[in-house]
């Protein structure tokens, strides 16, 4: 990436180029700046002035502010002189720091844009135009917001400002020389494209970069300085993106993502000594922030959490609604492009911190903040309303319950049926289980789909058997992660449509025969209960819910196959529910069920429900922490309810102070799948110092699935760009390590059974090669090919043994010899004759086969063995189908000699057992369901 440092260093040399810097800006600037200036709060100026007492120069600068345009114009017209520019610069800097910067920003942007035009031929004028436009828009919006809060800030933060200011000012003075240069630099940095923020931001960042010695001081002092202006932070950001942009823009098409990724992961980590400032509560309210790139000091997660904690809305992708983009180094090019497209404000890490520190409580007076606040208020009220509703319902329930108990007591029964239990005795998850469809969080479309399906069921399939070629699905398969309401939705919908429910779940034995007995016989029944209950409506419908279908295991032999066959012919709606649709167990359902995926509801969808519950239970739940809880539980609302219920026993408030530790404690700890493990092991970031995945955790990854992880790693270790060292060498070392790992594995799994070597195997086969080649993973993670190849080997070996058995009377070799000596010739002989003579060769082929006591299927097997540079398959294709079928026909017509050997079953199977009664269960399990359909 182009570094600011670079241009800083070059600035002196390139100064000459900058002439044009300010010139074209003048007019447009005049307009804009003046208008902006107007917007400046008079009081603010006054204050600034008072502040600047300490520094005369500053003061003058400030006072001159309105004149800036003229100065710049003159500058532009004449040869730019460093002196005036410096002044201007100072002014600008001061202003920006003190106020919203917006004006300065605008001005600067203009300049930048101009520069770009003049300087860089490759920048198209449209480009700059576009920039102009967006600057305007952007600024207007921003100005309003920011000016407001600036005003506030000033009063509150003045003291701080003042004290912090003096070093800054000095610094600035010292840097005056730099400033002028900097101005010159401005054009170079194509930040221009990156809207307004750029110009103002430059100053601080320049300082940082240019004088590393000053840097820390400057940053530290600048933070309070900027406090008043959220925008200034934004501006700072812009600088870094500038650096990026020049590179990205020209390489738009040829951008090498791999290179980019590789660089991204090699970025140095920050010094870690940055202190995260304490902001006012909810100070980022109303801002929609996007984080992109690698922030030098704060990890992405931390920074996002930080923003969320202060009430910002953090999204992943940039849209026109985004208010601020926090850009790290090596931000994605598409994001940068989008920033430009939407004319967004971008800031860097330091700017972000300043923003936090600078923003007033509750996000200031800005429109957006206002809106966000009112929205939150609304949410809370909504929660309140819902809580009231719940309360009412609960009251009604309680009354009913009392009556019921009284009735029971009258009848002389003292026992309390469980359905009359007090709410307080129930789990929260039960107490607050949705009682109507509207209460299900998220998945609205899936729920509707399911409802429609069930509604139309009787009309479509009622009381009739499936016809041939029917494509409508009689069964539905709901799948999705746990805790998101699949079962609840199915039950609620069925109930709401007046169905009687027959549920079977993993706690029931569901083997083929039992299913056949229990379910199979009722498939075409109607509900008696329903008939009697609701005779008027004749709602004798019932449906079957099979929960946890993927939980069919061990004892449920053949259950899946049987279920799949039910799914085709059922005369009652059949709802299947599972977690993992992709598991091989679920394959039989692929073509006979309508799939309805349920997704994890988003934090937003759960918010009001959770707030309601918290309110009802008297727990103070800070809405901003919900996101954290959601992330920790991977969007599992049931878990969150459990969490709140448990935590609330000791703590009645959940807010930003304790939400982190809670979230950490409740982090779901699930064994990862190999496909998730490998990226972790291969990602360079996890091998940096202080990574979130220390060595022992990497070893734990191995133990998550120690049979699959090593082969998977071996499959994928070549697909990375190592962060360090020579690629080839790293790979060589990794390969070495993997092979050593195999030696260890041999010790573990051989007769030695040295299980104590498992940790060593983890190191050698997984962690060490991972650490050697770790970098950016390119392409997707592949499944370990070894497994496929291994089973192929097994298959061919089996075939070979079989062939050798049969031909044993004619050959006198072992299997290997047979493969090496006989097989190639045999195949060639038959293939060539068949190819050259066509159908005429059939008798010869049959002769050959007979000679070796092989049969027709052996012929096919023979052809499967790849030989040499494999041209068997293409050659086979050349043989016309006619010839092939003629061969089969002819072969079947005659009788053929068979050697006595019966491979596999050579232990003397008597002829009696030739037709053993097939094990019914087995058969069904292996049966592909589609076979059944075909008949």
């Amino acid at each position, binding site marked *: 990436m182009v570094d600011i440092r670079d241009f800083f260093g070059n600035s002196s040399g390139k100064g000459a180029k900058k002439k044009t810097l300010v010139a074209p800006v003048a007019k447009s600037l005049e307009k804009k700046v003046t208008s902006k200036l107007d917007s400046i709060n008079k009081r603010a100026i006054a204050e600034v002035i008072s502040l600047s007492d300490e520094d005369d120069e500053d003061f003058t600068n400030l006072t001159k502010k309105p004149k800036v345009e003229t100065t710049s114009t003159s500058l532009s017209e004449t040869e730019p002189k460093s002196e005036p520019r410096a002044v201007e610069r100072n002014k600008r800097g001061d202003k920006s720091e003190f106020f919203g910067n917006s004006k300065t920003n605008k001005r600067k942007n203009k300049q930048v844009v101009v520069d770009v035009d003049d300087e860089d031929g490759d920048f198209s004028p449209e480009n700059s135009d576009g920039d102009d436009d967006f600057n305007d828009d952007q600024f207007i919006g921003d100005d309003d917001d920011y000016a407001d809060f600036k005003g506030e800030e000033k009063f509150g933060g003045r003291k701080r400002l003042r004290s912090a200011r003096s070093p800054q000012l000095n610094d600035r003075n010292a840097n005056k020389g730099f400033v002028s240069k900097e101005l010159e630099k401005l054009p170079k940095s194509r930040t221009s494209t990156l809207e307004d923020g750029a110009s103002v931001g430059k100053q601080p960042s320049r300082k940082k970069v240019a004088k590393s010695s000053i840097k820390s001081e400057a940053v530290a002092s600048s933070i309070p300085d900027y406090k008043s202006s959220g925008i200034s932070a934004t501006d700072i950001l812009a600088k870094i993106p500038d650096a990026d942009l020049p590179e990205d823009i020209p390489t738009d098409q040829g951008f090498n993502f791999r290179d980019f990724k590789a660089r991204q992961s090699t970025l140095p980590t920050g010094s870690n000594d940055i202190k995260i400032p304490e902001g006012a509560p909810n100070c980022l309210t109303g801002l929609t922030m996007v984080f992109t790139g690698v922030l030098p000091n704060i990890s992405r997660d931390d920074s996002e959490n930080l923003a969320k904690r202060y009430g910002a809305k953090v999204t992943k992708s940039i849209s026109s609604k985004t208010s601020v983009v926090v850009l790290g180094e090596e931000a994605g090019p598409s994001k940068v492009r989008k920033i430009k497209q939407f004319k967004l404000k971008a800031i860097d890490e330091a700017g972000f911190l300043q923003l936090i520190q600078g923003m007033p409580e509750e996000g200031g007076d800005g429109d957006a903040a206002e809106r966000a606040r009112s929205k939150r208020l609304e949410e809370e009220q909504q929660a309140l309303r819902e809580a009231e509703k719940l309360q009412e319902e609960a009251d009604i329930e309680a009354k009913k319950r009392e009556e019921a108990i009284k009735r029971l007591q009258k009848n002389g029964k003292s*026992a309390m049926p*469980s*359905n009359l*239990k*007090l709410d*307080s*005795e*129930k*789990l*929260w*998850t*039960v107490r607050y289980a949705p009682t109507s469809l509207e209460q299900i969080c998220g998945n609205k479309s899936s729920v509707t789909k399911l409802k429609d399906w069930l509604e139309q069921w009787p009309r479509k399939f009622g009381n009739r058997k499936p016809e041939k070629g029917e494509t409508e699905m009689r069964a539905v398969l709901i799948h999705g992660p*746990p*805790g998101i309401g699949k*079962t609840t939705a199915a039950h609620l919908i069925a109930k709401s449509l007046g169905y009687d429910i027959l549920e079977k*779940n*993993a*706690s*029931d*034995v569901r083997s083929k025969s039992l299913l056949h007995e229990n379910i199979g016989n009722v498939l075409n029944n109607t509900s008696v209960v329903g008939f009697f209950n609701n005779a008027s409506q004749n709602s004798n419908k019932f449906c079957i819910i099979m*929960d*946890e279908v*993927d*939980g069919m*295991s*061990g*004892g449920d032999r053949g259950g899946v196959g049987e279920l799949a066959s039910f799914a085709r012919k059922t005369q009652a709606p059949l709802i299947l529910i599972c977690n993992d649709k992709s598991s091989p167990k679920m394959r039989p359902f692929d073509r006979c069920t309508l799939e309805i995926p349920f997704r994890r509801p988003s934090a937003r969808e759960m918010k009001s429900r959770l707030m309601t519950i918290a309110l009802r239970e008297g727990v103070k739940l800070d809405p901003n922490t919900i996101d954290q809880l959601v992330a920790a*539980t991977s969007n599992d609302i*049931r*878990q969150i309810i*459990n969490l709140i*219920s*448990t935590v609330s*026993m*000791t703590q009645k408030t959940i807010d930003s102070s304790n939400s982190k530790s809670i979230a950490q*404690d*409740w982090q*779901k*700890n*699930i*064994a990862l799948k190999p496909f998730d493990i490998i990226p972790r092991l291969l990602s360079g970031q996890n*091998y940096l*110092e202080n990574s979130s995945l*220390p*060595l*022992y955790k990497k070893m734990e990854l191995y133990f*998550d699935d120690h049979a699959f992880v090593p082969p998977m790693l071996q499959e994928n270790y070549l697909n990375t760009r190592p962060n360090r060292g020579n690629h080839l060498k790293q790979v060589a070392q990794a390969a070495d390590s993997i092979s*050593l790992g195999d*030696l*260890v594995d041999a*010790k573990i799994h051989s007769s030695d059974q*040295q299980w*104590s*070597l498992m*940790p*060593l195997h983890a*190191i*050698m086969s997984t962690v*060490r090669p991972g*650490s050697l080649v770790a970098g950016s993973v390119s392409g997707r993670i592949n499944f370990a090919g070894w497994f496929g190849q291994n089973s192929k080997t097994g298959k061919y070996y089996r075939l070979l043994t079989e062939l050798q058995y049969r031909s044993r009377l004619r050959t006198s070799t072992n299997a290997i010899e047979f493969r090496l000596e006989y097989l190639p010739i045999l195949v060639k002989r038959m293939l060539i004759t068949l190819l050259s003579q066509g159908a005429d060769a059939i008798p010869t082929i049959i002769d050959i086969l007979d000679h070796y006591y092989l049969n027709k299927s052996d012929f096919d097997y023979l052809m499967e063995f790849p030989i040499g540079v494999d041209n068997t398959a293409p050659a086979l294709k050349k043989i016309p189908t006619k010839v092939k079928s003629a061969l089969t026909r002819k072969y079947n017509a005659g009788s053929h000699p068979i050697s006595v050997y019966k491979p596999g079953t050579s232990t003397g199977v008597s002829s009696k057992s030739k037709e053993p009664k097939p094990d019914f269960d087995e058969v069904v399990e292996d049966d592909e369901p589609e076979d059944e359909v075909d008949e």
Partner: protein
Amino acid sequence: MSNYSLKLELPWVEKYRPQVLKDIVGNQETIERLKLIAENGNMPHLIISGLPGIGKTTSIHCLAHELLGKHYNDATLELNASDDRGIDIVRNKIKQFAQKKVQLPQGRHKIIILDEADSMTPGAQQALRRTMEIYSNSTRFAFACNQSNKIIEPLQSRCAILRYGKLQDEEVLKRLLEILKLEDVKFSNDGLEALIFTAEGDMRQAINNLQSTNSGFGFVNGENVFKIVDSPHPLIIKRILLNCINQNFDDSLQLLNELWTKGYSAIDIASTSFKVVKNMNEITESKRLEIMKEIGITHMRVLEGVGSYLQLNGMLARISEIK
């Protein structure tokens, strides 16, 4: 003397196993929560996870006792890894128990304790899912496990997860002192230190070691404890390795020689070294990996039968060569 042997009839771990929640040491916040549950009833489904010997099973038992009191025998079903907990048991025994009716005071539920739940097969765990939900009005589950990631996600989602941390040294010390006093054992301070050090936050191990040291030597001091515990002291191993890494090869050989002459076996030294290096955060990770590779290979050779002093020297020499 006969009196003495009588006292030994019960292992101290059992003898001094806490009977009520308030006696449980460590993890205060969590225990606090359990106490509240015990008071108020309505126990949620629980997963308690943590290292061995920190009181998971004990706290569940205490909780169940305090919740159920005299109904304990009727209203709890405890299954641990020694019981068959295959899918059939889950579908029959557990489900039947969940359906069973027991007269309990308000806010109390039957409790099914599944100890060492991480050793249950995923199939059996699957079978628990709906049972936990359907009978939640009358039955609550408590799982204890070492690794919560061996519990399938759907179950975790239904439970309150309580994680027990390692016990603090002071907490172990406090309990040990109580026992020492009650048992009237003679001890020296370094003996206690050694006990705590070797236990690494595992109370059960600390008490067991205490009892063995006491019955073996009658006096608890550092030397005796290490004789009982019998594994090379990790600190010494760490010193050996650090010397090696810092190129003080002679020093490290000398330390190794001391260990060797005390009679520690090559396997113990190698495997302890491996564990020590794994957690030596002062060395960069890539270097640690190289060192672990050397140690591991040595370990392998020792397992192959060549557990000689020379072998270990070779290991150290190779480690000191790693850059």
